[in-house]
């Protein structure tokens, strides 16, 4: 009988997965990831005072930062330390927050071909000048949705866990030619 499981390889175990030795290096990491919607400035002020959301074209160089996903939505990324509030909540200050640490997997791309990876799946070139709005980090990449932005000398990608195997296989294919 037909078994699609013989066609598709087993799902990727993200623990310790990495691609190395190619034109780019891909490493899966597990920071804390918090989605803030609504009055995002108020949310950031409450959760990480002094932090301002950045667009994907800006070069982020901190361990804790917020990247803009949409007009009223940011992703707060911070080291995975301390107590975790797993439940979503609405705050009277006008924002909602949800922990996305289980929903998203973060991949850090470095190396000379890191930006070429992004160009394989979509038309956004984060090395180009940023639009006046600063842009948003949500984008489509080869039929899946990614959060992508510049981080230090490379890129960071956040992908929903169910799409990780597909993205990882894509990265493996890119590695063959990059």
């Amino acid at each position, binding site marked *: 009988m*037909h*078994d*699609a499981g013989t066609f*598709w390889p087993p799902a990727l175990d993200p623990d310790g997965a990495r691609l190395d030795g190619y034109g780019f290096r891909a490493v899966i990491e597990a920071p804390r990831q918090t989605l803030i919607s609504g009055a995002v400035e108020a949310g950031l002020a409450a959760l990480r005072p002094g932090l301002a959301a950045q667009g994907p074209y800006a070069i982020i160089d901190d361990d804790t930062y917020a990247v803009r996903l949409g007009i009223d939505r940011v992703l707060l990324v911070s080291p995975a330390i301390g107590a975790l509030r*797993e439940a*979503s909540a609405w705050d009277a200050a006008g924002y909602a927050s949800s922990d996305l640490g289980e*929903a998203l997997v973060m991949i850090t791309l470095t190396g000379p071909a890191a930006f070429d990876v992004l160009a394989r799946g979509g038309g*956004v*070139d984060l090395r180009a000048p940023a639009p006046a709005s600063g842009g948003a980090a949500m984008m489509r990449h080869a039929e899946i949705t990614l959060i992508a932005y510049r981080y230090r000398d490379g890129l960071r990608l956040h992908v929903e866990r169910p799409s990780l195997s597909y993205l990882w296989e894509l990265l493996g294919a890119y590695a063959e030619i990059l």
Partner: protein
Amino acid sequence: MTGPTRLATGGRAIDRAQPLRFTFDGRAYSGFAGDTLASALLANGVRIVGRSFKYHRPRGIYGAGVEEPNALVDVTLGERTRPNLQATTVPLTDGLVARSVNASPTAEADRFAVIDRFAKFLPAGFYYKTFLWPNWHLFEPRIRAMAGLGRLGPTPSDVKADQVHRSVDLLVVGAGPAGLCAALAASAAGRSVMIVDDGPAPGGALHAHDQTIEGSPGPVWAAEVAQRLQDAGATLLTRSTGFGVYDHGLVGVLEREAVDAPGWAPERLHLVRARQIVLAAGAIERPLVFPDNDRPGVMSAQAVQAYLTRWGVLPGRRIVVATNNDSAYPVASSLVRAGATVTVVDYRPRVTPTIADETRAMGVTLRIGERIEGVMGTRAVTGVQVGATLIAADCLAMSGGFTPTVHLHCQARGKLRYDGRLAALVPGDLAPGMLVAGAANGAFDLQSCVFEGHAAGGGAMGRSPRVTSRGEPFGIEPAWPEPGLRRRAWIDFQNDVTTKDVELAARENYRSVEHLKRYTTLGMATDQGKTANMNALALMAAITDRSIPEVGTTTYRPPFTPVPFTAIVGMRRGTLMDPLKRLPAENAHRRLGARLDAYGGWLRPRCYGGGPDEAAAIRAEVMAARGQVGLFDASSLGKIEVLGPDAARFLDFIYYNTVSTLKPGRIRYGFMLRENGVVYDDGVLARLAEDRFLVSCSSGHTAGVLAALESWRHDSFDTRRVVIHDLTAGWGTIAVSGPRSRRLVEALGLGVDLDDAVLPHMGLAAGLFAGRSARVARVSFTGDRSYEISVPASLTGRLWQALIEAGAPLGATPFGLEALSLMRAEKGYIIVGRDTDGTTMPHDLGMTGPRDKRRDEFVGRRSLFLEAAQAGNRRQLVGLAAEGDEPLGNGAHAAYLAGERPRSIGYVTTSYLSPTLGRPIALGLVENGRARLGDMIDIHHLGSRRRARIVEPCFLDPKGERLDA
């Protein structure tokens, strides 16, 4: 030297220190690095490189680039065969194996050559007329077998192809002098630039001519400019053709021989979005039309020049140059200097005296005001008939003028105008975001090309590069084909269209160019009108007594040059074809022998184990779940949180059912409708807190539901008071269903009070699993007592394993989607999209309360009260109890026979043999079905007829007692 026509010296493009071996039609040849397959074939004296499409006439190389209509070849390198490549664009590589197309066994000795003798019986459209009787389909297989050109390789192509997206300020198509100047000016202004050219090196026509820019020979200048551009960050792609302009200015660029990796196609597809496009694609030389102008050895004059200059190949020793313009004279001079005996036949009655004098002074015989009347030789040119004179010749180089390469301009909806001074269609009104420069714009001299290119790139007036040339007069006088030729003269070499075919089309009233194209196949296939269109338009104009602009052109469509399917497919093949989502516990299911399948965009267990009798395995899963306890991975169900003070009001608007009356910790089943009142999705909603709801939706609908929620939020609500978070990926959910489900959940120790009084059906409680948050929901998709346990996604596999282990003494059995679907059907629980169609409204499913009672607005409400929504013949959900032991066919039609003419009144949506009930059950949508309860109807399926009684859709436990069993 590598062949009889290769000169001892010369050839800018080749490296004589690197000989290469290749074969063509089974014969071994050699060439040099830098050769194209075409130049190497010419160098080896190969005259016949293919056979024409229809008449199988011998054909030789005509052009030197993407305009080549004749030299199509199948190329094999290693294990990969690529069909229908233009030999003029194939770089020669060692070990290359090329075969001619449309010839058997070889182009030289094609057994179908005899077809040409019957040409008079095979005019344009002959098969439309000939094969009508008795039936076209009788002849079609054989005709289709004969059609087509190249042959695919013996093994399916399974290579991936690279695709790259690029965004630039300026895309320049064509790296000739105009394109380079445009790129240079734009780059100097700080714009990001990409420049593409189909040649192996930038420079375009500069490589074939002796011209000087900024004090350097053309090719040297081009190389220097290219380097400057790249140093400034511009992207330069050679062997790359901009083949199409698509919506919103997307340009497709195919880069050939770009990738060298095992398992990858050599082509790379660039998808370029540019703020501005400069089209500097040059112009293509037109043939002159005279009898037998398709013979091997009849070539484009510019191609002859290119072969001589770039590849050191002199295609003939006695060459006739036929022209109606001045551009052929430098070609004649070059040929004489290379040692050829040259006769120029100029169609024009007068030639500029200085040109004529200089040409004669070089020893060229000049025949002014004469025309080519015919070509001698079948397999190669042996002579040229000029008036009453037969000139011995082995090559005929011809120039009928130039056609600007305006394909991309026209694809982008730019307009054309006819320029009588150039005898050409040139760009008129420009398309937004696109400029045209150089020869593509009708600027055929170098100075104009440079000037236009510089201006198109935004360069300042008077700052364009300096050109040192003595000017290039053009002085064309049209020499359009004329009707009435007694012998065949070719308009379209590739598609075997002659002047007679165009005349026939006109006689049969196919006078529109679009009709002409389709009737004769003129300009189709790889040619796309590059060499043929202008002559055809002019001939049709002459025949129909119209001007060329009145005749017009056909619609230009991509691609300009052939694009392999592999390049279009890219990497979207095999397991990369479909971005299936993966369950967090997928590998745990695999270890249990799950058979997986794609459901709603997820790879999910269909069933577990079962050997060859999968149906038996599914039945066993049902019986275990009904009798003891079953485990089902429901992680793919949508889990969307709606938060904020207006969340309840928002969901009231979104859902058919009222949501705001739900208490925290309780769950409600509901429908989501489209604006037209049709059911879009169903699912359960849980109220987690006063200002927090969890929307569970179908696995395959999550993205759509999310988009709809966001759309309505922005459209009709204060976005500061309600937000939406999709947490589907963050939670794994295992459903535990069956009479022993409570005992199993208790064994997990989640810290949840499972007493039915505390956690009743449609109740929700929070607990802990492995120290992390867990939710336990009393919802059921089976009709049995069920608990859905949700935990952080990374713990899903651990939860699954814990349930398997704790459930072993209870007889816990995992079940897949098929068993779940069967259990749903036993309960009459619908699957939206399977048990509903594009017309089904909630009242068709028996849920009328909200429509009748709600007074507030909700999505789709208005549509529920339209006349059509309340018609008496709507198809309603019913159960179908079939006679006999076999289940009804899915999709089988329900026919009503009681005193009426038999007609379909509905169809079976779901059908199973119920293991629980031991008889077939089915759900269906039947016209006015609720009023027909108890009726017997016929069920028609694939020629068979069954009888079934219309019953309530719930077959098992209609009172719902098993929910608390």
